[in-house]
């Protein structure tokens, strides 16, 4: 900040008035505006004073210097407060969804009221809370991490209760007598937001093994595992690929997932629905293929390295829209779609952008320091901010950490914390996992590190290193799924932490040589009858799954008997690469 100093000039009795009337003196049409709006005696005096000062100013260096100083301070203050307001906006989740929910409810009530018999007016009744489903945004903004089930606080209907005069009056008397009437009357609708109990009971896992089939490097299966019971079900026929299958996100409604893999020079983009109906959404030559994200439950966005981004219908595979302007960024990596904005990164994942798909306008959200890779990232439920784990790259001399990136490009803020991003609590606060005192702690982000809250002190797995994307919070917040990598024997385990009971259990153990990937929480029912695995029990795969019975590879022309290829039970410490070489049907040898 700089401050002008007019002390060296002779004093002037009008200087104080100059400061007071600064805005009027500076307005290009201030005289006109002043005349138009002045109304009180004081206002008219001010108007007159402005005219006098306009005459006085050109001849008074003191007033000119004072005005210059005041202008400088005003400019700085406006800029600082403007920035302060923008930052404030980013600190609070949007309430638009809540508002629309209540409006929708009120609109319904008005409709009902219009068709109902005349009712008693002006009757004060307590507010009650009822659930109401209200979709907003596409819900996939959190990438493979869980999105948060919005807490809709809903104001209810006086009219609902008004339907019976006698009943309402009696109820009011009872409430009043019980001393709860006042409580209800004083309660704000937002005081007790109602969590919509959505069911996200299971987790999608991708498990791949090296293959011995000629021309096929890996065999991959997708499983749905019930986090509570441990029961699991294989959802796809075996996927043959020349490289690892890349899993994207679970669809916003939790009923589908998006993934892609390379086969014979083509990258095949598909979803559970399309795989199980024997098809795929689209194919792209490997050298033009990048990642893909959900746009909504029926559409995906596929990034091409050289030819922009294409919106596709997952059922027909037909392109709906092509966004060629995004070809300006080679190797665009798509992050989220939150209507109407598409969020994406450059190839090195050091810069974040967003583009308005309706207008084509593109905006850079983070400066390019070249020092940090922002991955993974999750978007808060309101779409106002993204949270990223910043990983050091070869250009970095800084440590990794958590960052908040404003969605509108107004700033990037280091949070002074390290850990693994999990998702968002019901109040939209960020939850993350950090190691403290040799324990994995589930933390809720506060305004400062000291204000962070510990939600679970000793989440499983104990003391294990958690990699990016290896921990996910259920969208309804009931639990946490974490994958660890045992450093000694290279085996991997999947743990479930129940945040409501503060208990942990190990769901699965994968043998060395198998790769497992947490895809995300889902709402698909687990139809398998596999027993619930205990702490050390291995993954139980359903051998009579319809997907396996169909026994077709999803890669056309390569029909194989899936049961012969991969139906087996994985057990602790069993090398399943070896198993798949030797076992055709049945279990891996102990």
């Amino acid at each position, binding site marked *: *900040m700089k401050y002008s100093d007019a002390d060296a000039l002779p004093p002037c009795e009008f200087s104080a008035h100059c400061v007071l009337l600064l*805005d009027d003196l500076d307005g290009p049409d201030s005289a006109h505006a002043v005349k138009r709006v002045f109304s009180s005696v004081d206002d008219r005096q001010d108007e007159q004073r402005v005219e006098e000062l306009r005459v006085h100013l050109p001849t008074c260096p003191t007033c000119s210097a004072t005005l210059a100083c005041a202008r400088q301070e005003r400019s700085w203050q406006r800029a600082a407060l403007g920035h*302060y307001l923008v930052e404030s906006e980013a600190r*609070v989740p949007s309430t638009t969804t809540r508002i629309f929910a209540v409006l929708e409810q009120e609109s319904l009530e008005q409709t009902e009221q219009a068709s109902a018999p005349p009712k008693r007016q002006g009757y004060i009744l307590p507010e009650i809370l009822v659930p109401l489903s209200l979709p907003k945004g596409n819900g996939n903004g959190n990438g493979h991490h869980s999105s948060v089930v919005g807490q809709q606080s809903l104001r209810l209907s006086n009219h609902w209760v008004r339907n019976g005069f006698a009943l309402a009056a009696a109820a009011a008397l009872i409430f009043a007598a019980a001393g709860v009437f006042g409580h209800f009357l004083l309660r704000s609708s937002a005081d007790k937001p109602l969590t919509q109990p959505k069911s996200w009971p299971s987790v999608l896992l991708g498990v791949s093994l090296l293959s011995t089939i000629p021309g096929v490097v890996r065999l991959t299966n997708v499983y749905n595992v019930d986090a509570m019971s441990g029961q699991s079900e294989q959802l796809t026929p075996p996927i043959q690929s020349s490289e690892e299958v890349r899993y994207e996100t679970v669809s916003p409604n939790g009923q589908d997932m998006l993934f892609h893999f390379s086969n014979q020079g083509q990258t095949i983009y598909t979803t559970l629905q399309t795989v199980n109906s024997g098809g795929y959404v689209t194919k792209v030559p490997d050298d033009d293929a990048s990642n893909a994200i959900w746009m909504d439950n029926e559409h995906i966005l596929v990034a091409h390295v050289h030819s922009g981004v294409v919106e596709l219908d997952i059922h027909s595979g037909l392109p709906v829209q092509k966004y060629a302007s995004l070809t300006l960024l080679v190797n665009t990596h798509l992050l989220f779609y939150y209507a109407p904005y598409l969020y994406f990164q450059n190839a090195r994942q050091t810069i974040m952008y967003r583009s308005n798909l309706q207008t084509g306008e593109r905006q850079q959200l983070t400066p390019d*320091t070249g020092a940090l890779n922002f991955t993974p990232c999750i978007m808060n439920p309101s779409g106002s901010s993204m949270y990223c784990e910043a990983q050091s790259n070869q250009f970095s*001399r800084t440590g990794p950490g958590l960052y908040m990136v404003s969605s509108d490009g107004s*700033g990037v803020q280091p949070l002074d914390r390290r850990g693994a991003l999990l998702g968002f609590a019901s109040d939209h606060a960020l939850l993350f996992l950090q190691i403290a005192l040799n324990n994995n702690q589930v933390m809720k982000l506060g305004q*400062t590190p000291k204000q962070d809250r510990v939600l679970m002190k000793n989440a499983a797995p104990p003391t294990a290193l958690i990699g990016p994307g290896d921990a996910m919070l259920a969208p309804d917040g009931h639990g946490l799924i974490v994958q660890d990598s045992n450093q000694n024997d290279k085996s991997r385990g999947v743990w479930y932490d129940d945040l409501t009971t503060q208990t942990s259990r190990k769901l699965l153990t994968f043998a060395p040589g198998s790769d497992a990937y947490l895809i995300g929480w889902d709402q698909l029912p687990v139809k398998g009858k596999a027993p619930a695995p205990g702490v050390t029990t291995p993954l139980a795969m359903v051998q009579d799954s319809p997907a396996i019975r169909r026994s077709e590879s999803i890669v056309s022309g390569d029909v194989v008997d899936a049961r012969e290829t991969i139906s087996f039970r994985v057990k602790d410490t069993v090398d399943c690469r070896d198993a798949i070489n030797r076992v055709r049907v049945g279990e891996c040898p102990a």
Partner: protein
Amino acid sequence: MNVLENEPQLTLEACKGSMVAFEALVVYYEPRIRRMLYSLTQDSQLTQDLCQETFLAAYRALPRMSGEELRFAPWLYRIALNQVRSEWRRHKHVSVVPFPTPMGNGDEVFDDTGEACLESGEYFEEQVVQRDLIDRVMTQLPPASAMCLLLDAEGFSYSEIAETLQDTLSAVRSRLSRARQTFQRLYRTLEEEGRS
């Protein structure tokens, strides 16, 4: 203040009961009201509650308003600021401002000595320190002065501020001028305290 291009028309339609028009106004003004409320309360949950109540109050009152004469922005901000005042009165609100810890002061210290990080690191630190100072200044300002300054920063004209605060132009002019000087004095003092 910059307003929606078709705001008068939207206001008129909203007064006549158009939900679509009101939703367009909500989409445009909700972030602005939210940031104003948070700047005054420093409380995320309270801000969300007050923001929701503001728009619901507006929605319920619109049918009683004359769409041709209503200037939506000052009217909406007035509702929002009245919500804040009511909240302060109800709870004798004492704003406890959390002071963000400047980067590097936590247990998990960033090693930001690298040149690559210097540019962005200094920028972040300066922003954090500035926000901290403004937080503290805002809590020391009289509420009406803080509101005045924030409305001015939002681009409101004197007449719009006067309309929002239900005051005369002359009073707004005096209040804003005093608020600017007080803000500058407090900020400078706190900044110097921070340096020493």
